[in-house]
């Protein structure tokens, strides 16, 4: 497939307004502004665009839910928090193609009747934010953002808001809380942001990649977009491949592409002499897949059918040198650290999962600890305000499910039996 979102990223100065304008920049916006907002939403619905932030929810439908019958202002919140382990596509888009995101924000604002879009960017992306701010200033100066955009009378501002290091700030209601100057903790839903979001006004939270897809839908038409992938999984998609592959990176392809092709063709396959052990297909929060499960299209629906999720399309590849107890413990450290603390099952459960995994990994566990993991995990799943809880239990539950003998070996041998040449020597496991 001819790349759409990343076509020019390797060309010098592709991030500048001047370059963007030479390559159909702000043309999608021009077309959208010539349409009534309801027709814009219809077009997005026809395209079948699904959110790229994790849940795969249809974007047109999300916008249609935004309350119109109200005197309150409305807001687009662009989710540029990108903190899901294994995900780095929005990073690339913002670094190399920031105007595409601005254009998408403006189309979104026009569709739902908003006058401001807040881009919530994770605090760690400061080097990206500097680029965004410089480019945004140029877009303002040349009339693409601000008052009377493209001479149509449409006024719209874009504000870049820097986060300060919190994974949970990526969850849509927690993002709104953080934008309001509070701790990034989720709200009880309903009401959904479409009814009461930012400052209790109707809002839509959209991922960066989702918004970046909009201009091409208006330039090339919704049918073109829908036809690019399997049914209900249309459009170009960015896949992030990292871990034990030769050529990690961001790859743009349609969702016809299989996971195996992404790993072995796009990302260059496994390191020499190594073979694949497990793959996390959609960011650390989703269930692992085994080597024989990779011949499926990397689409929202096909990966769900295989028992996992496409999520944020962060594909983490682990080879046979990876100890699965260690991997689960590594991820539980992340979730325990990032749990916002609002719901007890998640706050306490993550801590316990981490402690038990640490014990098993150190060779100090007992056999019943393995069932304890499953029991604690199942007491988190479905019992929290947001999807964080389910995500956090997943690494523990799926590693035990697929690799139970490895856990048992830690207990019976009192050490790790998987050889890894990349681990630290001073870790709490016996020398390999």
């Amino acid at each position, binding site marked *: 497939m001819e790349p759409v979102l990343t076509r020019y990223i390797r060309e010098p100065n592709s991030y500048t307004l001047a370059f963007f304008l030479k390559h159909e920049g702000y043309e999608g916006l021009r077309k959208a502004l010539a349409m009534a907002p309801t027709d814009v939403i219809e077009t997005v619905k026809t395209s079948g665009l699904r959110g790229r932030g994790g849940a795969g929810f249809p974007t047109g439908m999300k916008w249609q839910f935004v309350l119109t019958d109200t005197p309150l202002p409305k807001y687009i919140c662009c989710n540029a928090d990108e903190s899901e382990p*294994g995900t*780095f596509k929005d990073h690339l888009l913002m*670094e*190399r193609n920031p105007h595409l995101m601005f254009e998408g924000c403006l189309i979104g604002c026009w569709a739902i009747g908003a006058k401001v879009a807040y881009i919530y960017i*994770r605090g*760690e992306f400061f080097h990206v934010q500097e680029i965004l701010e410089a480019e945004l200033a140029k877009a303002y100066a040349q009339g693409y953002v601000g008052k009377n955009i493209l001479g149509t009378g449409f006024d719209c501002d874009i504000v870049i808001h820097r986060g300060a290091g919190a994974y949970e700030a990526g969850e849509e209601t927690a993002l709104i809380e953080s934008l*309001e100057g509070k701790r990034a903790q989720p709200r009880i839903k309903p009401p959904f942001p479409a009814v009461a979001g930012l400052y209790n006004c109707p809002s839509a939270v959209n991922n960066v990649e989702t918004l970046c897809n909009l201009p091409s839908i208006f330039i090339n038409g919704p049918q073109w977009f829908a036809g690019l992938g399997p049914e209900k999984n249309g459009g170009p998609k960015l896949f992030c491949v990292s871990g034990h592959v030769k050529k990690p990176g961001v790859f743009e392809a349609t969702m016809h592409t299989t996971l195996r092709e992404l790993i072995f063709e796009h990302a260059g396959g496994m390191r020499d002499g190594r073979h694949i052990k497990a793959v996390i297909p959609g960011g650390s929060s989703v269930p692992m897949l085994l080597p024989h499960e990779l011949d499926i299209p990397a689409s929202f629906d096909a990966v769900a059918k295989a028992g996992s999720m496409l999520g944020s399309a962060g594909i983490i590849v682990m080879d046979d040198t*990876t100890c699965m107890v260690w991997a689960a413990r590594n991820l539980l450290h992340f979730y325990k650290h990032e749990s916002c603390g609002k719901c007890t099952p998640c706050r306490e459960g993550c801590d316990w999962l981490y402690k038990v995994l640490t014990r098993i990994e150190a060779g100090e566990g007992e056999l019943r600890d393995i069932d304890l993991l499953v029991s604690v995990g199942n007491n988190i799943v479905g019992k929290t305000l947001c999807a964080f809880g389910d995500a956090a239990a997943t690494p523990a539950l799926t590693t035990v499910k697929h690799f139970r003998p490895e856990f048992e070996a830690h207990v019976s041998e009192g050490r790790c039996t998987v050889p890894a040449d990349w681990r630290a020597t001073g870790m709490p496991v016996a020398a390999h």
Partner: protein
Amino acid sequence: MSFHPLMAYDRARFQKSERKIADEGPPFVFTPERRAKLDDILTKYPPDKKRSAVLAALYLVQEQVGYVTAGGMRHVAGILDLAPAEVEDVATYYVMFFKEPVGKHVVQVCRTLSCALMGAERVTETLSEKLGIKVGETDASGTFTLLEFECLGACDRAPVIMVNNAQWYECVRPEDVGRLVDDLTASKRDPAFSGCHLKVEA
């Protein structure tokens, strides 16, 4: 900082909490430039939603003092019409705010799965040896603080190190660590290391 400005915290008399009390720090007011910057940021939010600027204000405090102090938080609370406790509530939640003095170079190594698979543990271990400090510590001269960080969103260039919340080093191998530390000490930045920016421009 105390929960209420008129009630000085005195552990023995008022409470038994083990909660870490924020460091008072030097007397604090924003420099005129930083105050102007904050006033500018405030124009980006509805006039009655000043609280939205709290993260930006805390970054400015940290830029001025090196970490977020109780005095700085009270000052921010005054500007944004918040209770000091509300500002502290926010400041203590986010990991990019330092709650105590840190070294001149805060070295933050990503430890999450993709970086760990590419050897981040060894990078941290080597850094720890080279600097003579453990993760979470600052060296005696106040030059380096070593921290572990969770996924920085650049897993294809693992392992990733961020310095002072802003400057990135990628694909760092344990054998690069010596050079990285020397460069930071000499306040020079080796271009071969840096630039998360997919550098295509000359």
